[in-house]
């Protein structure tokens, strides 16, 4: 089961957070790739494997929400888990509208993230990702 675990992409501008999430997910047996910003992820060629995207909303230059828009424009659909250190109600609304799997307010419980990932991976297992 663990070998089949999907790739989790983490986009956060904060290195501490990236390192911590990377460790947490690794401890849970996920394959994980971290990105320092939205543009870096856009430049990255996603492999054709099931996975999910953990996006920080507030980032310099391009925000997580904007990245979601860009990805839809490109026709790339991932289950997306948003996380944010600062909450704005309209963000949550918009995230939901765009089909986000979860919206997590930092700091969140590690288990909450893992549950959200499990849920999104399960979803991708049933509905094949469109790339």
């Amino acid at each position, binding site marked *: 089961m663990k070998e089949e675990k999907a790739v989790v992409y983490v986009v956060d501008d904060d290195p501490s957070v990236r390192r911590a999430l990377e460790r947490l997910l690794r401890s849970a047996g996920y394959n994980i790739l971290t990105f320092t910003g939205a543009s870096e992820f856009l430049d990255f060629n996603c492999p054709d494997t099931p996975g999910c995207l953990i996006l920080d909303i507030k980032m310099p230059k391009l925000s997580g929400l904007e990245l979601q828009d860009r990805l839809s424009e490109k026709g790339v659909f991932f289950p997306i888990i948003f996380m944010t*250190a600062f909450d704005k109600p309209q963000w949550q609304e918009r995230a939901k509208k765009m089909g986000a799997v979860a919206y997590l307010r*930092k*700091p*969140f419980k590690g*288990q909450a993230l893992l549950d959200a990932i499990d849920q999104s991976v399960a979803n991708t297992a049933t509905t094949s990702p469109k790339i």
Partner: protein
Amino acid sequence: MMFVVRENRWKSFCFYMFFIGLIVYGPIVGIARSQTQVQNPLETKNVLILNGAEPNTPAFESLNQELLAVLQSGGIGIRNQFFEYLGLTRNPSPESRKLRMQLVSRRYSEHKMDLIITLYPNSLKFLLDMDQSFFPAAPVMALIIPQGYKLPETDRRIIPHVVVPDLNRTLEIGLKLVPKAERIYVVNGVDPMDRWVERLARKDFKKWEDRLDFYHLSDLPLEKILATVSAAPANSIVYLTTFSKDVTGKYMRTVEVSEELAEVSKAPVFGFLGTVIGHGNVGGSLISFKHIGTKAGELALDILRGAQNTENIPEVLNVPQVDIFDWRQLKHWNLSESDLPRGSVIVNREFSPWNLRYYIIGVLVFIMAQLLLIIGLLAQKRRTRLAEEALRQHRKELAYVTRIATMGELTTSLAHEINQPLTAIRSNAGAALRFLSQPEPDIREVRQILEDIVRDDRRASNVIQNIRAMVKKEKRNKELLDLNKVIRGVVDLIRDDSLLKGLSIALELNRGLKMIHGDPIQLQQVILNLILNSAVAMRNTPRDQRKIIVRTAMADDRIVNVSVTDFGTGIDENNIERLFEAFYTTKSEGLGMGLSISKTIVHAHGGDIKASNNREGGATFVITLPANQGDAS
């Protein structure tokens, strides 16, 4: 407008000068007086004063006292004044007189007299009867020569003081004070001088006789006189002229008679001789012996000073009578002060609060004026202080509001900045627990996690401290600070920070740096921000070039500069303006708040912060702060 202003200034100037004058003028007068006594051209001159009477004769005593004082003030010392009392009235025998002449000429044979003053005709006559060799060149001032007295023929130069009695004037004044008076009791002695005065009085009073009843009492013994006066009706005036001897041959003094009259009289007693004042007499137009003494003394000084220049010396000394009244007697007889002639001298005034009312009012006005002045000044001072207080308060509020406004912009990111490390901590902790629950936990991994947790925790608490510093409305007053000390403190604090490892901080601190007013904690924050900023900018700089230079300097007399120079990546010229905006950051980590906060703090200190790129690479941040306008630190 200009005029009004100047007038006001002039007024306040006068006002102040008035007070200063009060304080300064008195002493100046005192000094001026004492200085007039310095020159003394008459100190070698001798004056002989021949009294016909005995010592302690009231009239002559007061004359002599005044004469002595005036001569002395003119420079003739007491050792140069020779008072001789001849006692001629009491010792009228020719033998006694002869002996006295010999005595006098013997007594003064070893002296040289420059002026001889005689009192009363008898002493003048005595002098003229003496040996011609007795200081024949000395001029003679003959005081108290009754009008009509024929001066004896002589070669001596005589300047007589002729007494021209005016008995009417006292009566005129008396009638004004006692308008209902119809009976005038004239009290007079029978001594030749008394008789002379009586004759004059009878002559003078003639013009009143149709209006007033005159009772001349000179032919009654004193007891009868007193009895008569004690029965005087209310519409009476008693007029005491001179009284040296009563009809029974008893020698008296006018002063004593005045006292006895006052004791029994039913009517106010007026007088003719100055000596009666203070002895139960109301007063009147009096022959003032004191006044005669003054005038005689002054003339004597003139004579002695200008003995060669005789034209300036009058042939006759005239001393007018003086209107003198005893205040207590006026009160006793209920006589109105306002009925007195202008320029009257009032003696023995008792200073009851009512009499002092004008002085008291004056003093009160003075005190009030001063009080108002003081209150005015205090009020002004208080107003100034309140204004300053208000200004300070406003400034504080302004700083606070500014900070809060800035905070508004910052809030988003502050939350962000705290939640980021907390997220990392939680995730790390979760990961660590999971790793530890594995059969063979990777202790190194767990150790790294714990180190990261500690670092993130510090990061979070730093942010909280930042917020505290920003939000806390400081009650603390700014203090005088030596920026050099502040900088050294910061550098000592962070030298061991891992961020600064492999990096040198050079301090170039100006010793002549002026102190500044500031909050030490906030300014430390600013310096720390700039140094850490520079450190981050040099992450990719080759190790041997990683160096931060902190300099202090006086930009000019009023401005203190602190600059932090690094040799890092420099600033993106396009973004140099956004540099101090909140959350502008080029770093992959951090707040983007450090410079924003720094700017807020520096502005709150009345200074500014600027950034620029160095020619040789890297950036320099310069803080300018206003220097304290005092001595160099």
